[in-house]
């Protein structure tokens, strides 16, 4: 097992060209990139900076343009407008084989006529690496992805998980400045997917490489990435850390796309210091913390994550000082969804709407569990609310 890979061997220069920028320095700059197919703007004026050593995820529903953007980085599509700068050099029009970027394909795209060893060595041979060095590098890669003993197998003699590892080893073998991963775990079953997520993160950290992953699975993006770019209809809707994306979504659409959320439409009523009172149709007046970016007067939505909604039989048991500002909603339990670690209760409010509350099952035998049609109070603090333009 090789734990540390030398970063500046002659081979990496032969394969990659330029030396790596130090971690944290900008590696890739995407400037106003647009790609249209006919009249359809698949990618529409996207600008994005990615730092060396970053694990970046492009997240979005299918057809949002994330794969097209990735394919432009790999060189399979050329942008109609905009620049793609890698280490300061515009590569927007460079052909795939001229770029120090490698890609791990969605269904792996392993060469079926080549053995595991030859698949991994393919890129090294193209770079003109000497035979002896290729053998060493291939052995390194095989050890890295734990495929020892399978070097002579053909791809169709491997399991899905093994194929995924070969694809990863093949893409990493040239030590690219940037590794693109197109839905790399989509073909694996859930258990394997979760363990592989961890391995990918560990590998990325150990090699100090820059990864850009495309995924439609928000949990996968949240787990692995340092930063997430959410795409919608060809545009970047928000670029943020997983926590920021979840706790401070910038729009109603993002709030609903990432995780579960309760949304109450309403209008701003009055300001009380750092608090804002918003009158909602379904949940009455809600007190929220004043948002960082001022929201316009018109229609608003109050968003609250289900796990931040607490339930109790008689109302919040909390410090007297905060009591006035707490949002209390009376209702009855309308639906119970037991998920193992948590239970999601749907509460039908007396004011008309419903609110979802997710409660951790912290005890095995829970005598306090709520039952259907039980009267409860759902409550949450102003700081847990997010105000979004409607």
């Amino acid at each position, binding site marked *: 097992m090789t734990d540390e890979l030398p970063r500046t061997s002659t081979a990496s220069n032969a394969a990659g060209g330029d030396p790596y920028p130090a971690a944290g320095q900008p590696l890739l700059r995407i400037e106003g990139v647009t790609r249209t197919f006919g009249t359809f703007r698949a990618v529409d004026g996207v600008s994005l900076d990615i730092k060396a050593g970053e694990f970046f995820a492009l997240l979005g529903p299918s057809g949002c343009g994330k794969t097209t953007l990735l394919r432009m980085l790999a060189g399979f599509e050329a942008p109609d407008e905009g620049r793609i700068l890698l280490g300061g050099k515009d590569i927007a029009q460079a052909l795939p084989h001229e770029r120090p970027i*490698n890609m791990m394909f969605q269904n792996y*795209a392993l060469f079926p006529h080549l053995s595991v060893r030859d698949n991994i060595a393919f890129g090294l041979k193209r770079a003109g690496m000497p035979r002896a060095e290729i053998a060493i590098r291939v052995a390194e890669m095989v050890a890295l992805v734990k495929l020892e003993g399978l070097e002579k197998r053909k791809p169709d003699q491997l399991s899905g998980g093994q194929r995924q590892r070969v694809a990863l080893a093949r893409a990493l073998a040239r030590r690219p400045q940037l590794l693109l991963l197109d839905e790399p775990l989509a073909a694996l079953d859930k258990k394997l997917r979760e363990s592989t997520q961890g391995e990918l993160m560990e590998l990325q950290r150990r090699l100090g490489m820059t990864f850009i992953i495309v995924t439609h699975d928000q949990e996968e993006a949240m787990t692995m990435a340092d930063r997430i770019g959410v795409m919608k209809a060809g545009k970047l809707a928000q670029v943020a850390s997983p926590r920021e994306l979840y706790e401070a979504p910038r729009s109603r659409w993002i709030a609903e796309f990432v995780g579960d959320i309760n949304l109450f439409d309403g209008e701003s009523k009055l300001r009380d210091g750092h608090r804002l009172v918003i009158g909602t149709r379904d949940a009455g007046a809600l007190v929220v913390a004043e948002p960082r970016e001022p929201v316009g007067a018109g229609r608003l939505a109050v968003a609250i994550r289900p796990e931040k909604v607490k339930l109790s039989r008689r109302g919040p048991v909390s410090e007297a000082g905060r009591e006035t500002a707490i949002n209390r909603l009376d209702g009855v339990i309308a639906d119970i969804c037991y998920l193992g670690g948590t239970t999601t209760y749907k509460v039908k409010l007396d004011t008309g709407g419903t609110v979802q509350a997710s409660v951790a099952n912290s005890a095995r035998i829970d005598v306090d569990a709520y039952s259907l049609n039980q009267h409860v109070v759902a409550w949450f603090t102003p700081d847990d609310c997010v105000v979004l333009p409607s």
Partner: protein
Amino acid sequence: MSSRRIFARPARFAAIAPYVWMVLFFMVPFAFVLKIGLSQTAIAQPPYDPVFDLTAGWDALRGAFAALSFDNFKLLVSDDIYVFAYVRSLTVAITATVLLLLIGYPIAYGMARLPRRWQAVAMVLVIVPFWTSFLIRIYAWINILQHDGLLNQILLALHLVSRPVVWLSTDSAMYIGIVYSYLPFMILPLYATLAKMEPVLEEAAGDLGAPPWQVFWLVTFPLSLPGVGAGVLLCFIPIVGEFVIPDLLAGSNSLMIGQTLWLEFFTNKDWPVASAAAIVLLVVLLVPLLLYERLQKRQLEHER
């Protein structure tokens, strides 16, 4: 258990069917031809000797068997005419197959990369010549290639030549005819393998640093080899025995084995030599067939 037997029986019959077919329509006729090949020419009806007569009794049959000999096969090997005919057949077939591959591969590749709905159109265009009789199409080529034919008219009009070129009764005319006639048999299996191939494999090769020509040689071509093999066999084997095209389009100074067979059979009425020539041709053709099958088997075992 009983239900399994009900289903097993028709399945077993289905498995036997190809063997019955082989025996009835290949092995039995082959035995006839082999027997004639071992006989001697005779001015009689049928024109060879001995004739197996099952009604004449056991001794007569034994005598007939004793009269069989390998004389015709010895003649085939010793007489230059036949050796040359075989060599020419193989040369023509190899040359034509290479030409077919060189012309057919780009066409098949182009077809496989067309948008889906255009692929169907291209497919029809490849097959459409079959709707006209083969013979009529070859006669059409005679028309095109003759002294004042279309080809010479075009060449003259474009001032590419100053005098009409002699095309008919040349090897060029024969190759034009063969390539034209067999092209669909080369294109279709190639197209089938190339269309099945995932274009993402070519992208992966490019991504790993292979310029386009390497992508072709290292990925596209090796993966299309089953199609190449099928196309080559589908063309090579019938071209070796080709009779009509060389007879109508090529000169008469060197004959292919198909023409020699025809001469022996119809003109010389020498059935035994014609039969022997046919059997040798079959053996010659079996060699590449077995070679191909062996290669495929090895590949299958490798994959397992």
